């Protein structure tokens, strides 16, 4: 079997590989949450990365898994996110900005304002430098604007 060769988009993901700690601040309604944890990012061949996160301070010993790749035929970054605290699977599709620093991943997810149905979310991965990256999460509001509700700073430990 011939494996597809890794493209520059796949290579971009490789810079996430390593061990990280994070600090996160989120706002849900009137409440603010702070959280710290770790994230371990590994390659799955040349085409995918898998990130396993822990949230020891979140009030519930959470664990998460994110997969990210680049679908050459669709010309889009694709991936998924699941966490031990949620029975909903998030499916990503996204694009890198022209500067090559910011990967915006879009996903449909449940609303968290008690209204049934789903809305759109962004998880925005930004490479600040080799040792620092940001993850900003935004939710689309009913008026069409995007509201940031979480910001996480990751610091490389190895």
């Amino acid at each position: 079997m011939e494996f597809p060769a890794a493209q520059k988009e796949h290579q971009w993901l490789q810079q996430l590989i390593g061990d990280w700690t994070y600090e996160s601040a989120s706002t849900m309604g009137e409440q603010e949450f702070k959280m710290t944890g770790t994230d371990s990012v590994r390659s799955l061949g040349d085409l995918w990365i898998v990130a396993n996160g822990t949230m020891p301070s979140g009030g519930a010993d959470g664990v998460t898994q994110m997969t990210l790749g680049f679908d050459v035929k669709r010309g889009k970054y694709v991936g998924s996110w699941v966490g031990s605290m949620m029975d909903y699977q998030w499916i990503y599709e996204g694009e890198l900005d022209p500067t090559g620093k910011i990967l915006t991943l879009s996903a449909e997810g449940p609303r968290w304002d008690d209204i049934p149905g789903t809305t759109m979310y962004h998880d925005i991965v930004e490479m600040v430098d080799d040792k620092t990256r940001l993850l900003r999460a935004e939710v689309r509001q009913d008026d069409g604007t995007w509201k940031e509700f979480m910001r996480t700073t990751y610091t490389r430990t190895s």
Partner: protein
Amino acid sequence: MHIPAATPQHKWLHQLVGQWTMQSDDPQHPMGGIEEVRHLGELWIIGEGQTAMPDGTPGALRVTIGYDPEKGKFVGHWVGSMMANQFVYEGDLDAAGKILTLNTEGPTWEEGQSGLARYRDIYEIVSDTERLLRSEMQKADGSWTEFMRVTYKRVPPDEIVEPGRSKQNGKH
């Protein structure tokens, strides 16, 4: 944060947890390997597969399966080191509680066709220690063709390979 309780469907998935050998008996695509299935909390299982492709190249597979009570569907995701596209699963358990059929779509490999085709991965519990995975693709004429069948056998507790060591030992 409110964490949903595991439903019977989540608990059904827990029987897949453990270490398994995989063997495809297709003479044209012989493939062997090992899969570690673990919990991600109570709501998800994650299978990490290490295989040797027919030409000996190592392959890595990652399958994630859960159950979404809101949708009333099993949901999940499959990626492999040999493919740049992801397969997103949605499916149902049969009435006997033995066969989980997960539907997805992906690029067709039917000759003369292009674009996307429907696929299904059919997970069947044979016994406590054996399960089957059959992969089927729907052809342009609407018929389904099986293109892969893998038998999984549970590794007995006293023969489990240490995590990490199995990573170098993909071929079983």
